[in-house]
């Protein structure tokens, strides 16, 4: 039998969601942007993630890892966009920006080659900045398993010749 959550009025629910949205949206956008490297695509991905969160709000609003849930959906939406078609990156204007774009493209390519669970762990921990315990909660695995995914994922990324630790994202 399905469990029912405590009833809240539509106004109260929307106000609650609005508060969370204002607080969390910039973080979700940043995660999407780091993956997609395109502002419009990142905005779309973050918005889609929050729309899905609103659709599921009665179920997820009281979860202890609610914010991490939203970040995970954001990461998954962005990764799905990448899986379908890597977004065109904006043309770089300076040498520094060119380096940044090249590093981002290399990171996206290397991330896409990782197993999905390693991708999620790296996105949530290194790009969204969530602690390992929270990553473990949202992925439904033990913290030690998250450590393993992170370790293996980072080993794979470090083995990618196109990624130079001295510049670009701090993935090491």
């Amino acid at each position, binding site marked *: *039998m*399905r*469990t029912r959550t405590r009833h809240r009025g539509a106004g109260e629910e*929307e106000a609650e*969601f*609005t508060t969370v*949205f*204002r607080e969390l*949206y*910039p973080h979700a*956008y*940043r995660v999407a*942007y*780091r993956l997609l490297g395109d*502002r*419009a695509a990142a*905005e779309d991905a*973050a*918005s*889609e993630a*929050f*729309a*899905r*969160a*609103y*659709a*599921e*709000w009665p*179920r*997820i609003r009281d979860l202890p890892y609610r914010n991490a*849930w939203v970040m*995970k*959906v954001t990461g*998954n939406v962005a990764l*799905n966009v990448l899986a379908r078609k890597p977004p065109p990156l904006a043309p770089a204007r300076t040498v520094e920006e060119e380096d*940044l774009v090249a590093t981002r493209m290399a990171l996206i390519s290397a991330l896409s080659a990782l197993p*999905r669970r390693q991708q999620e762990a790296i996105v949530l921990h290194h790009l969204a*900045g969530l602690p390992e315990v929270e990553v473990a909660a*949202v*992925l*439904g*695995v*033990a913290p030690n*398993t998250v450590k393993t995914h992170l370790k293996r994922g980072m080993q794979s990324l470090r083995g990618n010749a196109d990624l130079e630790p001295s510049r*670009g*994202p*701090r993935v090491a």
Partner: protein
Amino acid sequence: MWPDPLEAPPRPADELLDEVLRRGRELRRVRRQARQLTWIARAAAVVAVTGLAAGLTYGSTDDPGRPRTAEVAAPAVERDDVPGSSSTTAPEVPGVPTTRGPVEELPTDSSTTTAPENDSAGRRVAPLAVVEQRSADGTYRTAVLHPDGALVAVTPATEDRQMPVLSPRGDTIAFQRRAPHPLTGQPRWEIFTVGIDGRGLRQVTGGLVEGGPQLIDTPLGAGSRWPSWSPDGRRLAYSCSGATGKPVICISRADGLLRSAITTEADGFYQPTWSPDGETIAAKRETDDGKVELWLLDAAGAGELALPVPRLDPRGVRLSWTVDGRELVYAQVDTSERGLVIIDVASGQRRLVLTPTPARFPIVCGPGQVLYLQSDIPLEADELRIGPLVLVGSDGSAPTTVLPARPGTEYLPSSCASR
């Protein structure tokens, strides 16, 4: 952190809020409509069945133009194992006793009887379950594991998997085995049912029914496989062959009549598993790269939805619904992480529950409990996985051996009645 000035959102959150809320409401509305459509379809099914009682019946499943509502008058079909019927019509199958004539009791194998361990309160812990026994000679038999620990074989040995499933009431088993096509004589998969006492074997698909609808399947394709009971125990869902032989998901009454397809050959769905509320059927679809996607189908054929999970290694991925119908369970194939994978069907979120021992072929057995074969042998290995059947909490806690390992026999849990 990444020193990128572009990481600030181009628009403030407030400007996007209305857009997000509108999209979120749209998602809610679509999901609500899908639920309503299911109810409407179920009501229509009730009307159709009522019409059937007045002398109507369905057309052939293999007719592409086949309507899904009652349209052709036909005499009622009678079978001696259907309440209220008086004659036998199921076809005979070599080596398989049928419902024709006196019921033949299948031999049971008392040597396989064993006793489960008791729990801390001294109670028997074995659920009423159906398991497949694979022997050293490579044959399979279906056996019933009774709560008192008795394990009784109820089907003859076959060379292929029987994929038995226990009806919700726990009195009948549906399974697959090869039988000759009534026109070509070529063996193909068909669905059978048998009582848990081994009596009342009958062929559900592929047989000729005298005086009734001619339910002759196309000789193309593999036939009908992977049965799954509806929660009320009145219907079966299974993979059957479409007009050109490719698999479609069929639903019929438990006696094989009133069959309809809820998917098309182009969809490519197979191996259905009916949800506990009867509204949804989980199914697999093979992709071009040899992996499988998991889908949720509306049981009334109103639509389908892909579960947002990565493509999976098809080996050993057999889905089992939790009792509340909110999650699907299957075994983790990756040998580096042994345990149960549990998918939240609403979000597609997956979590791995580590089990105290290596788990294969898990099935949900009542609220919060999973039965699995304890074995560490890789799926690709063609050797017997000799190990005990273990009942464990769905959080991996309190493992209890309900059927000890027996030399020369592999036990594959198939379904439980205690849901």
